[in-house]
């Protein structure tokens, strides 16, 4: 049978089945189980109405149980057993083995890098795009261009970017854009400006940004010191941790400004971008940022439009400049949406698999947790460690998920 025909039949059976289920289950309930007639009609109607919600919920609960709850429990069980010993219970042995592997820590490190860079970059670019495209005539065209990558699958995007990073031996024509550009820099002023000065400035800007983050995180604490209020110990702790993390990142950034300025770069030689340790992680992240920026832009653009004009007008009358309006009026008002976008992208990042799988397969120190799990499950056939790493991913996702739901419900209230 032709696949298209099969698909069509599946759709008909699926939709028909759903409609049929609700129709017939109601029919059976009302006609046979608790008919609304006879001597006990009143009691029957009440009972039927008590059963009905469960009838409607049953498919969803059943599917969730079958496809979510059962796998989670089974994964947990597998992560505590060793198949080579006939499925014997081994406690945390699999976790111990996993923690002892350098590849696991490499995956953890890379995941943390992804978590810091991708949501931040996507949200920042999305916010920028949303703000800028609202003001120009061809904004909607620009928006659709930025949104378009959302329609491409992760693997498709990876293939596109693999071509961008493609390398041909020296002497042959480079088909990879990045190498073609790289080869154009053969020393001289512009290669200094673009390859040394620009990264150094970026690093310096990042360090300054981190200082600002520290300031933002600590200011409420310093102010609160005067008026001691209980119950905010946890937020205080989170703020201190954020500040410490920002300080560390800022220190790292400022420390590497000088090396970036003086590094000896192999000009004129085609580079195999995806094999350069550490930096290749960023080449992979670009793909996800490219995809997710559209998502962030669409949501944030809607939020920006929802800001009441009056506050902005009032700011203009008070003499605020555009930067003040953006950072002090608009951004605080859409902070809730920014957080939602940020956390949603964070969840995507924690599960990132396709991009790494399709581009480097975790080689050259680009391993991430999801790909590590796939590696263990299907290449090494070690279901114990594979399940253990799946549980680790789940534990990492869980708090963000809970927080996200909590925030979303707060928004709705």
């Amino acid at each position: 049978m032709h696949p298209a025909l099969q698909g069509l039949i599946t759709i008909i059976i699926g939709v028909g089945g759903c409609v049929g289920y609700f129709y017939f289950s109601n029919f059976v309930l009302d006609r046979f189980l608790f008919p609304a007639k006879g001597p006990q009609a009143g009691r029957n109607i009440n009972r039927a109405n008590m059963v009905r919600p469960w009838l409607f919920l049953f498919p969803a609960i059943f599917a969730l149980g079958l496809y979510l709850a059962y796998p989670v429990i089974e994964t947990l069980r597998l992560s505590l057993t060793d198949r080579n010993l006939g499925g014997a219970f081994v406690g945390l042995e699999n976790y111990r083995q996993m923690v002892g592997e350098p590849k696991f820590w490499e995956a953890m490190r890379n995941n943390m890098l992804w978590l810091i860079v991708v949501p931040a970059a996507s949200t920042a670019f999305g916010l920028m795009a949303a703000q800028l495209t609202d003001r120009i005539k061809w904004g909607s065209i620009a928006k659709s261009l930025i949104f378009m990558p959302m329609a491409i699958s992760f693997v498709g995007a990876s293939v596109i970017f693999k071509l961008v990073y493609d390398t041909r031996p020296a002497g042959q024509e480079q088909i990879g854009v990045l190498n073609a550009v790289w080869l154009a820099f053969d020393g001289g002023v512009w290669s200094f400006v673009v390859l040394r000065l620009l990264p150094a400035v970026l690093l310096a800007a990042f360090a300054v940004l981190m200082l600002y983050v520290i300031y933002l995180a600590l200011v409420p604490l310093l102010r609160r010191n005067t008026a001691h209020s209980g119950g905010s110990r946890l937020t205080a702790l989170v703020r201190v941790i954020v500040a410490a993390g920002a300080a560390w990142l800022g220190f790292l950034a400022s420390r590497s400004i000088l090396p970036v300025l003086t590094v000896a770069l192999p000009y004129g030689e085609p580079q195999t971008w995806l094999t350069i340790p550490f930096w290749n992680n960023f080449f992979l992240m670009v793909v996800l940022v490219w995809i997710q920026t559209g998502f962030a832009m669409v949501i944030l653009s809607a939020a920006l439009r929802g800001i009441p004009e009056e506050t902005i007008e009032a700011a203009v009358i008070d003499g605020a400049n555009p930067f003040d309006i953006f950072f002090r009026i608009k951004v605080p008002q859409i902070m809730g949406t920014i957080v939602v976008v940020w956390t949603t992208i964070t969840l995507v990042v924690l599960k990132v698999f396709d991009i790494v799988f399709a581009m480097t397969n975790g080689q050259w120190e680009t391993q991430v947790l999801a790909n590590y799990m796939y590696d263990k499950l299907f290449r090494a056939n070690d279901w114990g460690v594979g399940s253990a790493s799946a549980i680790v991913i789940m534990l990492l996702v869980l708090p963000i998920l809970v927080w996200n739901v909590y925030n979303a419900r707060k928004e709705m209230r």
Partner: protein
Amino acid sequence: MKKTVMAGFAAALLTSAAGSASAEQLTVFGPWLGPDQSYVEAVLEAFAEKSGHDVRYVGSDSFEQQIVVDLEAGSAPNVAAFPQPGLASDMAKRGFLAPLGEDVADWLRENYAAGESWVNLGTYVGPDGDSALYGFPFKIDVKSLVWFVPENFEDAGYEVPETMEELKALTEQIVADGGTPWCIGLGSGAATGWPATDWVEEMMLRTASPEDYDRWVTNEMKFTDPVVINAIEEFGWFARNDDFVAGGAGAVASTDFRDSPKGLFTSPPQCYMHRQASFIPAFFPEGTMMGDDADFFYFPAYEGKDLGKPVLGAGTTWVITNESDAAHELIAFLQTTEAHEIWMGLKGFLTPYKAVNPEAFSDPTLRKMNDILLQATTFRFDGSDLMPGGVGAGSFWTGMVDYAGGKSAEEVADAIQKSWESLK
């Protein structure tokens, strides 16, 4: 009315059940898709006609993952064609495979060239700890080939070398004449490094005994053993000398394996020789006439070492994953010349079966490759495919890239050995 319908339904059920008693349904699962799928289907079609069974082939591009899931889930096909014997051996240990029987082993011994090698390849340890023949090797690829352009050899007056000593002398001769002897490329996207593992395996077979090779792929002999280090350095003799490789040693790791043979065909030639498996002509420039524009010779063995004519290769091993009479009949059918000759008449098929008619090959190049296979004294399967995935498709690849990039053989071997130990 209702009764007649029910009766008719029951009758239909009965007849279909009766029909399947003589003609079983047989499912075959393999890694072939696209044109290759039609080739394997041609072979299975012949079997279906002969036996009357209903034979269905399913192919997957992620065979290795899918088969494990299928076997664990209890929805195994009847017969599966494993491209990785290492994985098949794992499955045998867990009791998912049915042994083929001693007479099939005897048949392989008698009818396949280097028969004992093939029996060893298909013999795994079962769930009870006893080893038995589980795998039937069918459809083989040969790797020990050196590709060259006959015209370039004629112009320069070079002879095809018969021994490794001659090959090394020829390499030095070409440099002395101002040329570059080799094109080597290890690039292959996420799998970068695998062509170098083939080189090291070839060198293992040419500097150590087949038994050492077997101990090496099971890690009984460690990667840090001097025998293995020596094999890595033998590869380094060719690949780490700037004069020997097109683009210099630095280009080896970054050149894509699909691009590197193109150097043979430039004018003047960027290189004279290229070692690669039987599939590589697909990446030769369009319109290359095999035999005229490009040819190959056997990657020779050392004359000074008494190791015969080893051949490195790969291929599929057919195993029974869900036992039935029809499955055993299919394995028996694979022992007929007919099964081999059908695929020989198509494409991409080599066989060590001595009784087949070489005229059945559709293509004289394949016939010549098959000769190499038939004359082999030992055959060994691609070692990286026999090693655990984390090594054979992981640290061994990256290690070879590091080695080509200038790290020492000891350092690289140490890293690979460590990763192997961490798997246990």
